[in-house]
């Protein structure tokens, strides 16, 4: 009952804030709405978020008075310790004592990895003497902003501050774009990601394959599980990102994008500029570049790459499989660099179409294989599965049902066809449209807004089918809610 009242009050505050012209009352209403929203997961969590926000605001003021490396290190250490306490105790790996059992029982504040990284970026920016002058209310709002507080996208204060200071417009364009993004997100999550997780026939999807493995998998099974999980994770998190970006857009806020067609990347480094972009750019700006520029030697740059990607893995949790996933992805980036260097030195050139296709295929398969580390229950399962890919005989005896192979192939082919044929064709058509042709179409009522509204119909239809298909099956939680 309290939760229902909280959500109603939250909706009233968010909508009310769009009508208030004066800055401080508007910001206070948005902050109250954000805290109300976050408090539905527990008041203790809210207390931690508020404490962290106030600490970082006042530490930022302290850092502004003397932006030294020592002061920055103090602020970073405090934030990392807070995050490590909750994440480390939650998923402790190496220590196995009674004390750790007690600590493991402590719940992790929702979104702590996301808002702590936002706080850290603020401290780094202050150290770099960026001109940021938030008020306490603005900083608390930046940390707790309702669309981003749970699972990102990880924002930067420099992008959010102007939006918090100006009146946001609820226009028909914003409502249309926002609604479309929300619908797309729901289709990606409730439709595609859910069906990959559960399977065409309940219990034959990715979740059961990893969590209830009873027989050793063959090489083909492992490749399809890796690809299937990569797709599930993408549709889950990109779907979530669409929903929150769309929800913020309804009220005139524009958030940073998190995904940009990652599976069409043709090199590992390109993949990491397209996947969870707000986190990868955070790691690039605040870890890789500062570390890599400390020394000019090439080996140091490779070490910085490996360290950055290991940290990227560790961000997901203090678990051996996440750390190994980060190391693996870092190693891929280093290998890619070495191959690139070798080809440049030896002038190894393939015909462009063959080079592009080969590069894409190798990147896709190599990145996909890494998901085995990310998703496995433990290190033993990951090693067994990876071992199967190296055993040629095991490829002859797949154990997963035919429906699973069909499902993953269908989703994969549809995704690639959409990205390489449908989307570019639609973009070309849009470009080819002359103003005169647009005007002529508008005379028949075919305006841009009309086309957007019509494009919502197939989305609603697919969403309806997804809900029907899911039936009584409970929807799998968002994967990134764990982090």
């Amino acid at each position, binding site marked *: 009952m309290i939760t229902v009242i909280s959500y109603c009050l939250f909706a009233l505050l968010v909508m009310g804030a769009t009508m208030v012209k004066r800055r401080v009352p508007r910001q206070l209403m948005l902050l109250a709405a954000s805290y109300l929203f976050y408090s539905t997961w527990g008041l203790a969590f809210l207390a931690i978020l508020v404490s962290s926000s106030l600490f970082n605001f006042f530490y930022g003021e302290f850092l502004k008075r003397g932006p030294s*490396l020592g002061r920055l290190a103090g602020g970073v250490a405090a934030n990392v310790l807070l995050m490590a306490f909750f994440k480390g105790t939650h998923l402790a790996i190496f220590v196995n004592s009674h004390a750790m059992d007690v600590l493991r029982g402590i719940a992790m504040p929702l979104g702590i990895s996301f808002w702590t990284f936002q706080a850290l970026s603020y401290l780094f920016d202050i*150290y*770099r003497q*960026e001109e940021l002058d938030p008020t306490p209310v603005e900083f608390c709002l930046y940390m707790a902003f309702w669309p981003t507080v749970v699972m990102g996208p990880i924002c930067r204060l420099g992008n959010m501050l102007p939006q918090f200071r100006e009146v946001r417009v609820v226009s028909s364009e914003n409502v249309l774009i926002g609604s479309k993004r929300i619908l797309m997100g729901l289709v990606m999550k409730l439709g595609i990601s859910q069906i990959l997780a559960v399977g065409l026939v309940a219990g034959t999807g990715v979740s059961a394959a990893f969590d209830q493995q009873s027989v050793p998998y063959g090489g083909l099974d492992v490749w399809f599980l890796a690809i299937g999980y990569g797709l599930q994770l993408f549709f889950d998190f990109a779907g979530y990102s669409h929903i929150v970006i769309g929800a913020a857009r309804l009220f005139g806020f524009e958030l940073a994008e998190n995904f940009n067609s990652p599976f069409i990347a043709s090199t590992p*480094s*390109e993949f990491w*500029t397209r996947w969870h972009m707000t986190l990868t*750019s955070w790691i*690039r*700006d605040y870890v*890789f*570049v*500062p*570390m*890599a*520029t*400390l020394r*000019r030697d090439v080996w140091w*740059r490779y070490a910085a*790459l490996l360290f950055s990607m290991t940290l990227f893995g560790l961000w997901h949790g203090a678990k051996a499989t996440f750390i190994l996933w980060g190391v693996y992805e870092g190693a891929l*980036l280093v290998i890619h*660099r070495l191959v690139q260097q070798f080809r440049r030195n030896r002038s190894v050139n393939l015909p462009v179409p063959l080079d592009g296709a080969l590069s894409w295929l190798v990147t896709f398969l190599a990145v996909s294989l890494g998901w085995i580390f990310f998703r496995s229950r433990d290190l033993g399962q990951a090693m067994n599965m990876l071992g199967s890919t190296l055993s040629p005989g095991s490829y002859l005896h797949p154990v997963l049902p035919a429906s699973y192979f069909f499902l993953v192939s269908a989703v994969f082919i549809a995704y690639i066809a959409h990205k390489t044929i449908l989307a570019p064709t639609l973009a070309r058509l849009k470009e080819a449209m002359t103003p005169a042709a647009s005007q002529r179409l508008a005379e028949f009522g075919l305006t841009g807004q009309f086309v957007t509204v019509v494009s919502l119909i197939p989305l609603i239809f697919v969403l309806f089918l997804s809900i029907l298909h899911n039936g009584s099956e409970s929807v799998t939680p968002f994967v990134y809610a764990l982090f």
Partner: protein
Amino acid sequence: MTETEQAQALLNYLSSNVLRRPGIKLTADSSLVASGLIDSFALVDVLTKLEEVSEMRIPAGKVRPKDMDTVNLMLAMAKRVGKPRQQK
């Protein structure tokens, strides 16, 4: 070197050593990082070149990738945070 010469030296270096896609015409205001023309690994090479042409030492930790997005922004950053190199 004048500022124009510094910009030209950087543009030549970028075109011949760094760009992911060949045959692209660059100006001192062309976006490099945001447009994906160069990646973060190459940023360090560009930074080394920037130090060479500007004759400045740019402290690690003060480099913001957004300041490396165009040649003009790079030169402005070198001026702002760079320290004159000690002559050997």
